[in-house]
């Protein structure tokens, strides 16, 4: 509130109260038999008239003080420690997920933090104030416009960021860090910058139950069920039943109640069935459950939806045998002469066996022994190559080259390809190509006995499945938490559960996205689609019954009246003053 507004409000309040005061004491007319005795009494009492006037004045003053207190309460005065004139201030709000904890006294820690920030802003009238959160960094300011800052407060919400850096701002004299202390953060950097750091705690112990871990994996064989691994924890001082519901798509696969002892964490394996939707969701509910964000977890069974592979070959041979025995892969065999004909159904990966199409395919492709010049590269051949050099790459994970004996290499090379396995003479044996538009793998050898013995070795299914998985399903990691997430390089588009696009930023080869809410995200790029499961899944966040703040900080905040908002106290005092004045007026003690 600007100065002239405050003075105007003060004058208006005083005027209204004075008018009401004299309205209140307007005398009624009372007819009496005679004023004879009243005259005697008043003559005798005349000497105390001055005292009566003093008492009346005191009553008026009490009313005025009451009004001023109410007016001050409306303007939300600030603690003395943040009195204006102290230089530039930085208000940092801890936006970790634990701030969403419902407090036993009502409201959430976040609500209290926002209220505290508003108080600080109001008290810093005339000073520059910057607003930041641990998740988003600097979000507003530095500015003296309190309306701008208040509007920023309306926009922000808990969004993780437990390990983010402190916002950098020059010439800050005071930093107010509003936190519940659930996630410990050192303020040493802020102190070192020369700023005075005030930690404003909003902690109040609460009980909570949480899903602290959730993961799924598809069955390794056609007759094996997919499974979900769960970890549930009870962060409360009392035992309580926890209801667990697990759904796969829209089908419920588990609905059970688990009795959890105080502080107990249990791990559960939930069978998810032989087939079904790739989306798996777990949800818990309990009596004492202060934090909602950790009550739900999601997962994506990457093998639940089979990859559609088209094999373009005139003699599929070993490939046909392999794919008949590989779960999660649905292969379609097409002769090279029929490649150009339109095909129906999904097609995630195309395998070109000893043949290369005239134009580059739009889908992710695996080229087996291409050895032909053209758009794919320059043909390179070598007899009896020795597998001598290999780079760490998902395609080669688990492949033992020592078991592989090659009779002939028929590869291609160009700048587009990155060899991840070479022969001793440098002939590329396994190459990969990865751009924003496509992924490709080239195997510089065939599978027939005249080319190699790999078809008879364990490396054969491992190499092929690795290549198809890498081509068809971008890797998203096993479990992702909100915050800055590193994505597979092929992912160019990320969609949140509510259908909004999440910005994907490239730093060199790294693709990064900032995820602010848990849920199942859709990742797309290079002709592939996959899902990214984001869960809080952090015992440190879910254990909202403890804090890293020192007892002195908590006690100081509770006991230091200067840190507490004044306006409730002012309203209470005004109420007491009004009550006393009203009572004394009716008792005729004052006027």
């Amino acid at each position, binding site marked *: 509130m600007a100065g002239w507004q405050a003075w105007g409000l003060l004058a208006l309040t005083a005027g209204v109260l004075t008018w009401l005061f004299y309205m209140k*004491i*307007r*005398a*009624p*007319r*009372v*007819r*009496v*038999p*005679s*004023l*004879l*005795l*009243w*005259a*005697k*009494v*008043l003559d*005798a*009492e005349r000497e*105390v008239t001055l005292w*009566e006037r003093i008492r*009346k004045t005191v009553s008026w003053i009490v009313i005025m003080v009451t009004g001023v207190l109410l007016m001050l309460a409306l303007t939300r005065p600030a603690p003395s420690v943040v009195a204006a004139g102290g230089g530039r201030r930085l208000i940092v709000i801890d936006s970790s997920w634990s701030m969403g904890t419902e407090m036993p006294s009502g409201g959430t820690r976040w609500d209290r933090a926002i209220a505290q920030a508003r108080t600080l802003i109001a008290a810093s009238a005339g000073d520059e104030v910057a607003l930041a959160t641990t998740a988003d960094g600097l979000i507003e300011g530095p500015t003296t416009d309190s309306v701008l800052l208040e509007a920023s407060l309306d926009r922000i919400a808990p969004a993780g960021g437990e390990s983010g850096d402190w916002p950098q701002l020059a010439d800050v004299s005071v930093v107010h860090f509003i936190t519940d202390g659930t996630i410990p953060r050192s303020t040493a950097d802020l102190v070192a910058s020369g700023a005075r750091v005030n930690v404003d705690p909003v902690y109040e112990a609460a009980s909570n139950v949480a899903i602290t871990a959730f993961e799924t994996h598809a069955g390794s064989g056609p007759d094996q069920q997919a499974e979900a691994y769960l970890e549930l924890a009870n962060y409360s001082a009392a035992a309580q039943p926890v209801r667990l519901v697990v759904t796969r798509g829209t089908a419920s696969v588990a609905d059970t109640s688990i009795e959890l002892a105080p502080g107990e964490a249990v791990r559960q394996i939930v069978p998810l069935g032989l087939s079904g939707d790739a989306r798996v969701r777990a949800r818990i509910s309990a009596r004492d459950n202060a934090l909602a964000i950790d009550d739900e977890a999601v997962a994506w069974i990457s093998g639940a939806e089979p990859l559609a592979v088209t094999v373009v070959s005139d003699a599929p041979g070993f490939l046909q045998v392999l794919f008949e025995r590989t779960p999660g892969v649905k292969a379609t065999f097409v002769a090279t002469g029929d490649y150009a004909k339109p095909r129906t159904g999904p097609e995630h990966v195309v395998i070109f066996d000893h043949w290369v199409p005239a134009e580059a395919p739009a889908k992710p492709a695996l080229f087996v022994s291409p050895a032909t010049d053209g758009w794919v590269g320059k043909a390179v051949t070598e007899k009896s190559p020795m597998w001598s050099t290999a780079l760490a790459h998902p395609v080669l994970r688990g492949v033992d080259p020592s078991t592989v004996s090659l009779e002939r290499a028929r590869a291609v090379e160009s700048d587009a390809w990155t060899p991840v396995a070479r022969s001793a003479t440098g002939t590329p044996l396994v190459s990969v190509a990865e751009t924003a538009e496509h992924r490709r793998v080239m195997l510089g050898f065939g599978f027939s006995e005249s080319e190699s013995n790999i078809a008879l070795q364990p490396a054969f299914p491992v190499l092929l499945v690795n290549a198809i998985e890498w081509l068809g399903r971008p890797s998203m990691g096993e479990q992702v938490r909100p915050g800055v997430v590193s994505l597979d390089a092929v992912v160019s588009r990320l969609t949140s559960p509510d259908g909004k696009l999440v910005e994907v930023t490239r730093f060199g080869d790294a693709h990064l996205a900032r995820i602010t809410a848990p849920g199942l995200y859709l990742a797309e790029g290079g002709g592939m689609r996959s899902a990214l499961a984001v869960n809080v899944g952090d015992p440190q966040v879910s254990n909202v019954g403890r804090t890293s703040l020192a007892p002195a900080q908590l006690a100081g905040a509770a006991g230091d009246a200067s840190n507490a908002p004044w306006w409730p106290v002012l309203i209470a005092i005004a109420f007491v003053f009004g009550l006393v004045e009203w009572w004394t*007026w009716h*008792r*005729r*003690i004052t*006027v």
Partner: protein
Amino acid sequence: MALSFDSDFLKKLEYLHVVSKKAFAGQARADRLAPKRGRGLEFADTRGYSAGDDFRHIDWKAYKRLGRLLLRLFDEEQDLPIYLFIDASRSMEATEKFDQARRLAAALCYIGLAHLDRVTIMPFDETVREERTAGQGKGRIFRVFEQLEQMQTGGKTNMAESFKLFAARGRRQGLAVIISDFLDPGGYESALKVLQARGHDVYVVQMASKADRDPGALGDVKFVDTETEVVRDVEVTPALAAAYTKAWEEHTEELARFCGRYNIGYVRADAERPVEEIILQTFRQGRFVA
């Protein structure tokens, strides 16, 4: 206001009579002993016969024994003049004081009429308005009721002027009963002294009401004098209210003390109390009726 008493109360009133500390000469034969000897039935004394005496009262038995003419004397029983002064000023109109005063006057009238006393009702404010004699005998009580019912309040209180005017009329000495709240700016002392100086046996009945004793309203009040319409702004604090109550009590005590000093009968009649209770208890305890 309609005046009426139930038959039980009237029967109780018939057994009472107004007590006068003095014997007064009446106009007609009645139940009260007159100061002179007369033609009553009760033998009082004898004296020597003088020429002109009624020889019918000569005691011939004494003449036979003593040889002297003696005259038999008898007590004279006459009526008692009762003057009922009713304060009809505007200060009496509040909180039923005037109604209560008329009820008391009616009861006293009935007692007097039942004993053949001569009752005269005189309302007064700044002066004595009128003077009506009820006559003698219980049968006159209805006229008294009618007269009292038609009585209205008005004007200011001026007891001194009113009683001086009454004294100037030279009425026979008798019992003067003043029913008033005695809230007279001019004071009541001289007025009562005038009546007593004229030889009347004076009785004071002080009418009081809760409104007189307790100011009631607290805070800033504009008090309006009913008689004078004078307005006065008063901040009635609890202390001031207590001071007023104390002043009223002092006023009452002062009146009672004055009456005691001048041998004037005094009783207090509260407007809130039943008239039967005032007559049968308060008046009897005050030896006003017996």
